[in-house]
């Protein structure tokens, strides 16, 4: 299933592809950041790039935004090679970079009003400020906002120009849970308006909530790609029944957990100890994909170590079963 086989792209006509990437490679000196990445994003779709730190997510997104040059391969964004994207091309994009440290000597309202002027048909500034939940802070200097509030300004600047394609590079880092929920609502509204979105995130629940499809990238390679609810294949989603028998932990992976529970109930003549039915979350599936990836390191910027494996074993019921 995994490894070096070409990821499946599904069938889509070329005219629908807002982003089209083929065999994208990027090397920095002797280090290869991307080993040949291919995917498409169709109009109106929200596509997530998932992967550990240093996997190549930001390199990929920055090549598509026009900030970095690729070493080889093809890239088309809104039909244009991002190497040659001019002002008119940029006007059709919304870019939310990873958080920046700008000095912030202007107010939220001043910043958005100024940037709105760059676009031919911007959204109303007041509406955007409302949408990101900063109405009370409109006249506050950006430098005086909290990290999460500044991030919302970044998002507001990304959408002020009514982009056809929105890049969101770890948009909710530093948000509190309530702010993240609000942000997801905002993205839902954009999706309803037909925006195409490319998202990178460390939060798997965020990807599950927002994205239709995702690619899992590790060590510069796509190790799986597909609809969010099909990532990792059917097997990875098989529920797990877990219980205790004479003090020992027992597990059984089954497509029919209710049947197993009924059987256990009959065998034990009553309620089994510590009974759980676990449906692997996207996070479990993702962690298993990354930890079993044959291409080397697990991520965290370091080679696989027993310590890292055991951490994943604790987090993911999948990893425990593997051995």
């Amino acid at each position, binding site marked *: 299933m995994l490894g070096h086989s070409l990821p499946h792209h599904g069938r889509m006509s070329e005219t629908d592809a807002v982003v089209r990437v083929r065999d994208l490679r990027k090397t*920095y000196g002797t280090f290869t950041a991307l080993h040949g990445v291919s995917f498409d994003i169709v109009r109106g779709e929200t596509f997530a790039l998932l992967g550990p730190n240093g996997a190549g997510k930001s390199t990929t997104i920055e090549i598509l935004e026009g*900030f*970095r*040059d690729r070493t080889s391969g093809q890239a088309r964004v809104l039909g244009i090679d*991002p190497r040659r994207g001019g002002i008119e091309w*940029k006007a059709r994009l919304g870019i939310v*970079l990873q958080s*920046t440290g*700008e000095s912030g000597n202007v107010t939220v309202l001043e910043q958005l009003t100024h940037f709105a002027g760059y*676009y031919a048909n911007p959204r109303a500034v007041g509406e955007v400020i409302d949408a990101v939940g900063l109405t009370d802070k409109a006249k506050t200097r950006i430098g005086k906002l909290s990290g999460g509030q500044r991030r919302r300004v970044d998002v507001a600047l990304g959408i002020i120009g009514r982009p056809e394609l929105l890049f969101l590079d770890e948009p909710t880092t530093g948000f509190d849970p309530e702010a993240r929920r609000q942000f997801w609502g905002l993205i839902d509204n954009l999706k309803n308006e037909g925006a195409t979105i490319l998202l990178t995130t460390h939060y798997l629940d965020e990807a599950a909530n927002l994205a239709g499809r995702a690619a899992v990238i590790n060590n510069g390679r796509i190790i799986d790609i597909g609809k969010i609810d099909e990532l990792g294949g059917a097997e990875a989603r098989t529920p797990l029944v877990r219980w205790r028998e004479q003090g020992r932990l027992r597990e059984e992976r089954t497509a029919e957990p209710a049947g197993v529970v009924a059987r256990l109930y009959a065998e034990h003549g009553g309620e089994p100890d510590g009974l759980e039915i676990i449906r692997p979350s996207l996070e479990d599936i993702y962690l298993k994909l990354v930890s079993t990836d044959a291409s080397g390191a697990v991520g965290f910027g370091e080679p696989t170590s027993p310590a890292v494996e055991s951490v994943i074993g604790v987090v993911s019921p999948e990893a425990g079963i593997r051995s």
Partner: protein
Amino acid sequence: MSVTTSPARTTNALPRTLRLGVSRIGYELKVYFRQGDSVFFSFLFPILMLAVFAVAFSSAGNLGENPDGSGGISFAAYYLPGMLAAGMLLSGVQNLGVDIAGEKGDGTLKRLGGSPLPVVSYFIGKIGMVMVSAVFQAILLLVIARFGFNVALPGDLDKWMTFAWVFLLGVITSCVLGIALSAVPRSSRSATAVVIPIVVLLQFISGVYLQFSMLPGWLQNFAGIFPLKWMAQGMRAVFLPESFAAVEQTGDWNLGWVAIILGIWFVVGLLLCRYTFRWIREDT
């Protein structure tokens, strides 16, 4: 990485570039005057220096007096042209060199590079901001010199026409050189370490702090390669009495060469901006 840098050429883009340039000037001025520290160092520095020199030498009598005690000028009057020239240099080279390197480091330029803002509009914003602040600075210097230190200012229009062109050409040349210089520091933290020694050295050898005619000939010639010497000379032509022209290198104010050298540096700076400016640092 020509991707993000070359200004897009689209039909009818010029009005938009100019409109956004003007919008940037307002934005830049707002940001500039809200930063307390940069306002203090670049904006008020020449004014403070004039005050220091005027007060320090207040008991030293006048400069360039005839034996009968006539024709001399105060130290405040003598230092005024140099401080005006220093202000022109600092507003452009120091201010923009450090400011733009900082914007590269903190992500401001990356954000702009991902937006449909033309590079030229960004330059217009920076140059406009410097021009406005330099004009305020010069007015403040002149007012303080006149009313604080009783310096007589020229009365005839010719002198003020000379002031206008030397000032405009000098400030705009400083701006393009500052933008070009901002590409040199490898991080925003090293920006002041790169820029400050250059401008300090130039001020010492170009007749801002030290009387230019006292410097050895070879140092005068060396200083003559750089624009500050010519800005200071142009300002001396406006504010010092004609009798002081005799101690200049050629025995006169040599305004023709002021125009030529500043013009050359302007073109060189413009070309450097055009070919070296990047929204983000090279990825290697």
